[in-house]
């Protein structure tokens, strides 16, 4: 008896970016803003149920009865978190291409339009994909912190120069 071979797909839901809030320098397109506006927490309407419904719909639309039946035989949404917008899907090993292609062709989830479902990684075990997801999130977090610190540092430097000038005037 051969074991059932499956693949796990890590994906993230990117909401349509509205980059409007300028930072202290009046710059809108800073790294910080770009990253933040793409990785917003998902609204409540995006849930495991609505996502799996949307994926099945996309499979039916793009690959017909044959595709949706074949892939739907082993299709589970193992995990989805609204805070980070990441999730893990399980599917059969042969069908992973079709599944990822149908993920890519999704434009909306339920009533929420303007959504990109961004497949990030495919792996054979759920453990590795969890580890990868954690590593990826912490990397993103450190990048965010770094870019915020940089802009804060710039402001500090400007402040320093201001005080130096004042001292000179006093003496």
């Amino acid at each position: 008896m051969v074991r059932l071979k499956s693949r796990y797909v890590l994906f993230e839901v990117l909401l349509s970016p509205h980059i409007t809030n300028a930072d202290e320098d009046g710059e809108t397109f800073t790294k910080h803003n770009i990253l933040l506006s793409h990785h917003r927490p998902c609204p409540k309407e995006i849930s495991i149920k609505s996502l799996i419904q949307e994926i099945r719909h996309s499979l039916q639309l793009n690959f017909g009865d044959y595709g949706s039946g074949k892939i739907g035989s082993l299709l589970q949404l193992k995990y989805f978190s609204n805070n980070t917008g990441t999730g893990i899907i399980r599917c059969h090993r042969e069908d992973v291409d079709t599944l990822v292609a149908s993920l890519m062709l999704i434009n909306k989830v339920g009533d929420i339009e303007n959504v990109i479902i961004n497949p990030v990684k495919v792996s054979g075990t759920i453990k590795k994909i969890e580890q990868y997801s954690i590593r990826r999130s912490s990397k993103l977090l450190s990048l965010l912190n770094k870019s915020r610190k940089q802009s804060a540092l710039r402001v500090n430097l400007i402040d320093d120069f201001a005080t130096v000038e004042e001292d000179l005037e006093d003496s």
Partner: protein
Amino acid sequence: MLVDLNVRWPQNGYSDPVSEEELIKLKTTLSTLYTLGYTHIALNFTMNQSDKFPNNVREMNPMQIEARFKDLMNTTGLKIYSRITLIIDDPSKGQSLSKISQAFDIVAALPVSEKGLGLATTNLDIDILTFNYGNRLPTILKHKNICNCVNRGVKVEIVYGYALRDIQQRRQFISNVRNVLRASRLRGIVVSSGAQSALECRNTLGVSSLLRTLGLTNDQCSRSQGENASLVLLNGRLRNGSYKQVIVMGSGDGEDNNIVNQTGLPSHHPVGKRKLTDTSVAFDNKKAKHNIE
């Protein structure tokens, strides 16, 4: 390195100006591409070949990439290039390419008739051959035409943005891609987004699995957004900035004369084939040998 050779520049001709809103929308698209991991992007300006071009070479490129996108390029490390796509209908009305190609980094041809296809595949000095994937192809593509074209160094472009717009276009896109893949024998394929808004961008994993279901081989999938596309960039810029497409003076990592495809931020590992030092020379080995002989 990941390359997207086709992001729509929001202008249809020289007469209509670019509004501030459209520029912000374009910047949002670019930042989405950055989040998805792209490093090199070309903005695509589409023109009919029979339309009137300004006489002055300086006015020919409406993009002003340096002035408009400098801050974005600095913060994200993206490299942004300009590209022109000429819609070729009746070859007799066309103008000479040499002047147009001086103003843009990359030149692409989009034939919409059989004659136009014949001209684009044989004579024109272009970097990319592209099609309108939302409509029917102008003719049945022949191996001989397309393969000749690929052997000359021209790449054939697949634009996946059409697959994301509506069902009719998606169906047409799939049949057209099948045709192009068959005619090109899977050689020299470049994939780009053709994004008109931020929501038409997808990352490589999604794109390559879509193309794999359409019949492109695994290695060509990864090459179509990396190696092949960067060759187009290199080739296009060598046309303007080099002596006989072979020799370039200047430092590889300089601001003004940036020929080699390096990523913008020093923290990224250099992706160019070799790191060039000061006053170094970029060689295209084959052509260099030929010239010496």
